[in-house]
């Protein structure tokens, strides 16, 4: 059979599922919050590694485009060398910015697969730069197409911008999209700048008109959605005289003229827009930081609170479990106490005839079911005690009836014996005496049985002697009470006396043993009774020549004699004599032992304590007298 698990283990098992679920939920929640905060932190990193270098590169490319346009325009003229020089210088600056983007972008390439793909696409576009430059130097491109080539590269950089400006905070995301749009408007302005350097072709003017329209639309749209702080700056630019001048010049260019000072004015406006753009970018990045902090705080709060709740619930669960198992342990202890101690004690006490008082079981429990079981146990206990008391009373009643009836028989039989004795004295005829002897013997035996019942019912037969009686007479008196007394040989024994108080019991005890010996030996065999002084008293030895008993039987009988169990009339009816012997022995401190004899048969040894054996005063003088 497998060992059953404890309640505690089972309760913990029950709690395990919800606790694990709670831990998993808490883990998911904490991970999500932490990821969000890490995403915000990433916005800042992406700004430094990708967006800022991209801004720089865009600016340098814008400058290079302008320089390229100037170079292409001045080809063949005297100032061509100056423009070439400017173009070459700008190329170097662009290359620096490009290299910076390459190095920086490598750091954030792995931020996400989408960003990685976008960065690679942009870098591929940048590779085309050398090709475009070669064609410009070889004058294989006209101004319009050279500009277009640069535009494509710049567009790819803006695409990178947009893809990187991802953030979990919606207001910041929207604003940064608008700032990018404004940046693109600035890009369009620089394209205008390049075209406006003039002189313009028809196609260039059409493109210029388109650029102006788009740029204005973009700025208007962005202004409508920008938040107040950023709009203030942009409004400042749009309403400035510089901007108005540029607008007038744009109109002139669209009309086919070449306004004086376009290059410087437009350059100034580009610079102003550029500054505003960088400022807006930095502002938004700075704005993302507190959001990130608040998210981190939230993460800590949510995670911490969650963890705290999990811990608290685990503690509460374990404490409840501990309390429940403690209550159950208490219940178990009480139940075991009732079963193993209280009830056996009650039964034992009732057998001794003592009155019993059993304290109620008290099981304190906050659990209704356990309290109910406790009450039920208390009821079981009181019912069991009541039943035991009732049975004990019944037994006591039966015992009393037994004893009274036996007493009456004993009294009548005793009187009959006295009567018979008187008749024996008067009898002269041997035949009449013989009849009287038979009657006397029968009466003696009947009296012995009546006394046996009295002894079994826990009382004492009323015969007694106040003076010491010779032990030899005691043994002979015992032999006389046995059915086959003629088979009993009482050997002479030392002239010692027995304390009168225990004479009646001793006679009865030895009579039972002799009766037993006679019954279990062949009909013709004698039963010998000896008496001898021993170290610890006086031993009366009853020997028979019967079949004897096995070692096991002897051990069993000796145990019963040493510690007589409660007499059970249903079970032990056939061992009545043995019970009487046990009772009498215990009552008078006499030890009775059965022993196998080496030549067959059984020897019963009755050891009477020294204190009860009395050495008589020398009698010889009395007899001689």
């Amino acid at each position, binding site marked *: 059979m497998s060992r059953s698990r404890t309640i505690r283990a089972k309760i913990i098992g029950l709690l395990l599922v919800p606790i694990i679920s709670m831990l998993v939920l808490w883990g998911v929640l904490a991970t999500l919050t932490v990821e969000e905060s890490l995403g915000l932190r990433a916005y800042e990193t992406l700004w430094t590694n990708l967006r800022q270098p991209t801004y720089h590169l865009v600016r340098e490319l814008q400058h290079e485009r302008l320089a390229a346009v100037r170079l292409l325009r001045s080809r063949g003229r005297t100032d061509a060398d100056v423009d070439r020089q400017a173009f070459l210088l700008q190329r170097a600056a662009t290359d620096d910015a490009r290299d910076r983007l390459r190095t920086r972008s490598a750091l954030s390439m792995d931020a996400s697969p989408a960003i990685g793909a976008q960065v690679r696409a942009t870098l591929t576009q940048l590779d085309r730069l050398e090709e475009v430059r070669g064609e410009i130097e070889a004058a294989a491109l006209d101004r319009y197409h050279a500009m277009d080539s640069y535009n494509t590269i710049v567009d790819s950089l803006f695409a990178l911008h947009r893809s990187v400006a991802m953030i979990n905070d919606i207001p910041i995301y929207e604003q940064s999209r608008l700032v990018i749009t404004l940046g693109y408007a600035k890009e369009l302005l620089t394209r205008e700048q390049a075209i406006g350097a003039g002189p313009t072709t028809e196609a260039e003017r059409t493109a210029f008109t388109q650029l102006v329209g788009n740029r204005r639309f973009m700025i208007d749209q962005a202004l409508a959605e920008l938040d107040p702080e950023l709009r203030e700056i942009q409004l400042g630019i749009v309403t400035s005289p510089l901007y108005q001048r540029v607008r007038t010049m744009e109109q002139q260019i669209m009309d086919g003229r070449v306004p004086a000072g376009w290059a410087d004015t437009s350059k100034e406006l580009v610079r102003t827009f550029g500054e505003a753009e960088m400022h807006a970018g930095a502002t938004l990045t700075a704005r993302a930081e507190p959001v990130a902090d608040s998210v981190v705080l939230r993460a800590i709060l949510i995670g911490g609170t969650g963890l705290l709740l999990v811990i608290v619930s685990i503690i509460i669960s374990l404490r409840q479990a501990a309390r429940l198992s403690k209550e159950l342990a208490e219940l178990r202890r009480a139940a075991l106490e009732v079963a193993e101690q209280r009830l056996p004690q009650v039964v034992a006490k009732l057998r001794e005839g003592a009155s019993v008082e059993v304290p109620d079981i008290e099981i304190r429990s906050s659990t209704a079911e356990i309290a109910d079981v406790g009450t039920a146990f208390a009821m079981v206990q009181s019912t069991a005690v009541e039943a035991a008391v009732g049975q004990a009373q019944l037994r006591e009643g039966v015992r009393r009836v037994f004893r009274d009836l036996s007493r009456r028989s004993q*009294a009548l039989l*005793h009187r009959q014996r006295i009567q018979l004795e008187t008749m024996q004295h008067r009898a*002269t005829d041997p035949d009449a005496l*013989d009849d009287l002897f038979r009657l006397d*013997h029968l009466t003696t035996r009947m009296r012995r049985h009546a006394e046996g019942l009295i002894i079994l019912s826990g009382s004492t037969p009323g015969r*007694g*002697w106040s003076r010491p009686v010779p032990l030899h007479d005691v043994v002979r008196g015992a032999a*006389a009470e046995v059915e086959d007394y003629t088979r009993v040989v009482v050997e*002479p024994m030392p002239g010692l006396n027995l304390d009168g108080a225990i004479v009646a019991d001793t006679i009865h005890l030895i009579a039972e043993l002799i009766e037993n010996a006679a019954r279990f030996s062949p009909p013709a065999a004698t039963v010998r009774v000896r008496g001898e002084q021993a170290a610890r008293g006086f031993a009366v030895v009853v020997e028979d020549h019967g079949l004897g008993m096995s070692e096991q039987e002897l051990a069993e009988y000796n145990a019963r004699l040493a510690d007589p169990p409660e007499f059970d009339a249903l079970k032990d009816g056939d061992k009545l004599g043995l019970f009487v012997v046990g009772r009498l022995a215990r009552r008078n401190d006499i030890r009775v032992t059965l022993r196998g004899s080496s030549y067959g048969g059984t020897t019963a040894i009755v050891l009477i304590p020294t204190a009860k054996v009395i050495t008589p005063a020398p009698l010889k003088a009395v*007899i001689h007298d």
Partner: protein
Amino acid sequence: MTDERWLDEEAGPVVPAYLLTRGRTVPVSEAIDLIAVITTVGGFAPPPGLGPEHLIILQKCIRPTRLVDVAAELALPIGVVRVLVGDLHAQELVRVELPAPMEDPGILLDVISALRSL
């Protein structure tokens, strides 16, 4: 209830009379007359196997005693004492002698009346 107690004499003799003779009522030797005089044959120790009552009779009869007197002294039924003396006589431990016949019937009558009063 009848919670009677019998002490000492009331309790009856410890050894019933029938045990003293092992139930015998007829002596082993010829019948002994009530007034037969019993005399112990002295000179040797009594053999083993005799009961205490046998020994007491031997003690008593060192001085010749009549059977009735022995019975009276031992407080035993005459039938029992007769058997016990019979045992001793069979082992030739005692002599049993009938007193010489009396000439005077008056004495005999006295004896009879005395016996009746027992």
